[in-house]
């Protein structure tokens, strides 16, 4: 074994080699550290978003995009602790960490087909992704509630937001277009019930540069649906674009007298009218509330029915209630009206100007009118449907009525009238008609007709043949008579003879008259008697 010990050849020359070869693992370690640093540097904050449903979302695959740039990835999808919602954990990239503001909004982009159009078609193949719109808040957030539908308004879009207040939403929806001269210039971004529950406030966004057309005097109206009207001009059909008819929309315009008005400020509030005419109509001013008490039934009266005064549509019915009057054990229809005095137009200038105590003054003025015969009537506006309207008119010879100045709302005395009177008369007429013994008349008439029929049969069967026979005999007789009367008939000869005899007889009687003695003496020569 001592042979192995002799030369130790390769033990000596180890000086630089080890350090060189260790460069390789050092480089590997550096690479690893570099990658680690990269990973750490590129990973931003983790945020959690809750959604109603995780439809289309996949952990580890679904991306988060901002302006179509991928800024994060869904890490996990779990149910919320109460199993009501879906908790989506998203890891944002480092460069996107300042996107997660406290008011940043997240929503899932899926293919959506609506009346207004189709969106998210690119996700049909690529699958859904989460889109975000960064907020304006200074604070950053980590937990968010995802929107169920994409917001119509993305921060940073040029334009202005306005609030439009309406009685109801109608067919408007988020995304419904806003039209200016039938050009779509904006859309409904959100809507909410007003805090008091009376009405809806709709937020609309008008894109630049059209937002400058919205001035303080701009009128907004609901452009949804079809406006079909029949009047003395004929049938009129007014619509905005077909899209707005189907999907709903808002239109706005400026009154012609408001040129060069300054643009409205952001978040200005406007009123949404039902249609264009009412939007463009002059402002109604404050309404005067009136109350009417009708003894009659008001079938056909509806809230919203017009109130007319001398053919001017002055207001509308706002409520119809029943009231009980214990004195007569009667139910009374109580109709509440809203009357806009401003609609009287120029007449208003001739009326006394309102002063401090407008209520009192109006009551006094109304009392004068009532004393001069102002009465309210429920009249039939449409004979077919029986719809009623309230007519305020001066009735000549109206029975005087006490007017209560202190009643609020003011009461106008009513007359049962109009169509009701006619109705009563018609009813009386019908009652009389129904009292007539039509049945017995009919029976008698029927018996008479039977007798007549029998008589006629008799006439046909017996009288007529006899008559014909008689006529024939008459004919024969006439023929016989005719034969007797021909020119040389013995009868005529006899008659001529008779005539001559008569002449002779007359001559004789004449002779006898003049010379009665001639019968005895014979004829004397008389010079006059020369034949």
């Amino acid at each position, binding site marked *: 074994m001592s042979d192995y010990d002799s030369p130790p050849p390769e033990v000596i*020359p180890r000086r630089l080699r080890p350090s060189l070869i260790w460069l*390789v693992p050092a480089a590997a370690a550096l690479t690893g550290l570099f990658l680690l640093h990269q990973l750490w540097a590129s990973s931003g904050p983790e945020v959690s978003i809750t959604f109603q449903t995780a439809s289309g979302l996949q952990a580890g695959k679904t991306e988060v995009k901002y302006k179509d740039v991928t800024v994060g990835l869904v890490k996990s999808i779990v149910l919320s602790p109460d199993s009501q919602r879906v908790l989506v954990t998203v890891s944002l990239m480092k460069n996107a960490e300042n996107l997660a503001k406290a008011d940043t909004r997240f929503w899932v982009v899926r293919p959506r087909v609506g009346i207004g159009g189709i969106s998210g078609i690119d996700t049909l193949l*690529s699958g859904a992704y989460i889109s975000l719109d960064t907020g304006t808040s200074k604070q950053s957030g980590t937990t968010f509630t995802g929107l169920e539908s994409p917001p119509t308004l993305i921060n940073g879009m040029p334009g202005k937001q306005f609030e439009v207040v309406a009685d109801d939403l109608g067919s408007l929806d988020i995304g419904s277009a806003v039209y200016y001269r039938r050009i779509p210039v904006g859309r409904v971004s959100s809507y909410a019930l007003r805090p008091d529950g009376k009405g809806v406030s709709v937020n609309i966004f008008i894109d630049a540069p059209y937002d400058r057309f919205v001035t303080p005097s701009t009128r907004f109206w609901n452009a949804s649906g079809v406006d079909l009207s029949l009047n003395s001009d004929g049938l009129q059909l007014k619509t905005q674009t077909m899209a707005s008819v189907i999907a709903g929309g808002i239109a706005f315009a400026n009154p012609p007298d408001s040129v060069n008005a300054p643009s409205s400020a952001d978040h200005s509030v406007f009123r949404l009218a039902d249609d264009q005419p009412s939007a463009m109509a002059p402002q109604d001013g404050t309404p005067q509330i009136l109350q009417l008490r009708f003894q009659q039934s008001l079938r056909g009266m509806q809230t919203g029915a017009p109130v007319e005064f001398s053919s001017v549509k002055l207001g509308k019915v706002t409520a119809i209630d029943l009231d009980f009057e214990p004195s007569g054990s009667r139910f009374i229809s109580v109709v509440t009206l809203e009357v806009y005095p401003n609609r009287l137009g120029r007449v208003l200038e001739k009326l006394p100007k309102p002063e401090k105590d407008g209520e009192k003054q109006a009551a006094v003025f109304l009392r004068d009118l009532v004393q001069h015969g102002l009465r309210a009537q429920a009249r039939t506006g449409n004979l077919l449907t029986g719809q009623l309207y309230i007519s305020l008119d001066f009735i000549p010879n109206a029975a005087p009525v006490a007017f209560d100045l202190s009643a609020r709302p003011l009461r106008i005395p009513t007359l049962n009238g109009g169509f009701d009177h006619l109705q009563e008369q018609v009813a009386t007429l019908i009652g009389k008609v129904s009292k007539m013994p039509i049945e017995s008349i009919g029976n008698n008439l029927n018996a008479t007709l039977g007798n007549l029929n029998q008589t006629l049969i008799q006439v046909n069967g017996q009288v007529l043949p006899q008559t014909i026979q008689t006529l024939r005999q008459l004919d024969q007789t006439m023929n016989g008579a005719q034969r007797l009367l021909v020119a040389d008939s013995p009868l005529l000869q006899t008659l001529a003879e008779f005539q001559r005899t008569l002449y002779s007889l007359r001559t004789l009687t004449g002779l006898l008259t003049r010379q009665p003695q001639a019968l005895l003496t014979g004829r004397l020569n008389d010079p006059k008697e020369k034949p």
Partner: protein
Amino acid sequence: MDAENRKGEARMTPAGQALSLGLVRCHVCGLACEHVGGVHALPCPRCHAPLHTRLPDSLTQTWALLLTGLLLYLPANLLPVMYNSFAGRGSESTILGGIAVFWASGSYGIAIVIFTASVLVPCAKFGILGGLLIATKRRDVSGRVRRSRLFRLTEHIGYWSMLDVMVVALIAALVQFPGFSTAEPRIGIVFFGAVVMFTLLAAMKFDPRLLWENNKHE
């Protein structure tokens, strides 16, 4: 010495090491040359390759390369190795993630093959080479035959670790239907390839003859 070692000794040249006979074997052409001695020995008279009695600096280099492989094995597993998109929906997958997907989808065979090639084999190599290095350093004489077999096994199975790289390369080349379905390699596969390469290099740098050196310094 136990029985196994005696058997091993019996198979080897009874004369022990070639150096004791003044011979050195050329690493390249295998010619047994006369050992002239000195630090810079004469080259092989047949193929002119440098002659060493042992691979120079074998243990250190093996250690370094093995460590490199081990370091690179981490990103190889942590980073995605492949990106594939189908019908617009893309995803990146790591080696272990891919195995899990295959296993979960019921493709147990493929999962096992990939697991063997990409996890079992590299880990086995790390373990075996590390064990051999430690044993050689300690000049542990027991179980030298078993260690020799393990080393041969390591050299043999080393190439199969490239299976993963091949799979990724094949898929990336074959699945190219732009807009519909694509597959692209990701940085992880580079690290994995480097791991395989460095373990192969480490196995190459390890001189198995060191296994048989006796505790001559003692």
